[in-house]
């Protein structure tokens, strides 16, 4: 490099942009698709002892929510082209159901608020105890 911090930094920024552009052109902009099967696969890997008894899957395939008999919840959501999971004890997850839209937020400082579109908000009726536990 040149030894000049400003020039070297500018060169680095241009090089980074070039490499990112190359990755973008070669691989497009793949987005993680949270189907039931994909969510089950990720959950089985991350939390193998979580026996889901029920699932809610986002109609836009961006997130899914599972619950087990203990009342624990597992949230799975797309991050880039992959899926990330979070497991919550009963009462630890903040949720809000508005019609067919389920808003899931948490105090975790690295996880964004998740908005799930449900085909039928009524599907979530069986989840009421879990949601009520989670509301704060």
């Amino acid at each position, binding site marked *: 490099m040149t030894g000049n911090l400003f020039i070297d930094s500018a060169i680095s920024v241009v090089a980074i942009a070039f490499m990112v552009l190359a990755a973008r052109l070669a*691989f497009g902009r793949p987005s993680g698709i949270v189907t039931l099967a994909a969510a089950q696969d990720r959950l089985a890997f991350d939390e*193998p002892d979580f026996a889901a008894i029920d699932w809610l899957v986002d109609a836009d395939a961006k997130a899914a929510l599972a619950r087990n008999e203990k009342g624990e919840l597992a949230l799975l959501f797309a991050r880039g082209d*992959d899926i990330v999971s979070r497991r919550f004890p009963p009462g630890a997850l903040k949720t809000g159901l508005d019609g067919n839209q389920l808003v899931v937020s948490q105090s975790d400082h690295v996880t964004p608020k998740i908005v799930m579109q449900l085909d039928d908000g009524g599907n979530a009726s069986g989840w009421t105890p879990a949601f009520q536990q989670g509301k704060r």
Partner: protein
Amino acid sequence: MTDFSYPDIIAYAVPAFLALILIEIVVARRTGRGRFEANDSATSLIMGFGSEIAPLIGGGAIVAAVFFAAYEFRLATIPNLWWTVILCFVIDDLRYYWWHRISHERRFFWASHVIHHSSQHYNLTTALRQTWTGQVTGQILFRTPLVFVGFHPAMVFFVGAVNLLYQFWIHTELIKRMGPFEIIFNTPSHHRVHHATNPKYLDANYAGTLIIWDKIFGTFVPEDDAERPRYGIIKNLGTFNPIIVAFHEWIGIAKDLVSARSLREMGGYLFGPPGWSPDGSRMTSAKIKERWVAIHGKKSAGDHKGRRKHQ
């Protein structure tokens, strides 16, 4: 041989980094043997860029001064000969093994190192995903004993740079196995295991250049063709934001320290294994392995004697 000047090989290597990343992108696209995502690569490269800037802002100069001061009190003066450079490299590689292992086993050090593991991808850009807070954990001080023994600071910096360069190319899925070379040297296959979160791969392959250290200290695990590595950390990040990537574990430590009810708890949160908690409700990698064994049996979780890896 008292001229301890060495080439700045990192500066020379930067164009090669760029070329190799572009080649990997093209080959991965054509063969389907690798995976890139622009957002992930951008985060990795920004982290790499920041890791070069951070020491200029922080204590890089101070630590370097300590380094050179130690040389003033050295036990011996080791000359600049080809074999002393090799000797320095081998000893520094052993030092790297233990530094790296501690960086996985103690949360204070993990808070800095976790950045390198925070990508769910494994490609050459992942190699450049480096910490911004390495100076905070004082990693260079772990190399001070080499200087104190009598290796010139410039030589120690040089062999460290060679080690760093070596570790770049092993971050790829394009190269599968490398035959007898894998007996002694760290390779893409060995390092894929290190970056994997599969329970059977946790706590393994801490080597820098020489994989022999893992074999000697019982942390070596070969890649199993039947179990493809899944990369990242146990609790993968939900963001590509470089600021959060850089500081998320430090923030987590700060939150835990605020909630701690005793000095013991503070010590546990700071220097316990990643995932330690007073009530045992969180998962350390040892617990993850135990859980896996309970579900799938001992064989599937691996039988090496390595301990904890990362949360």
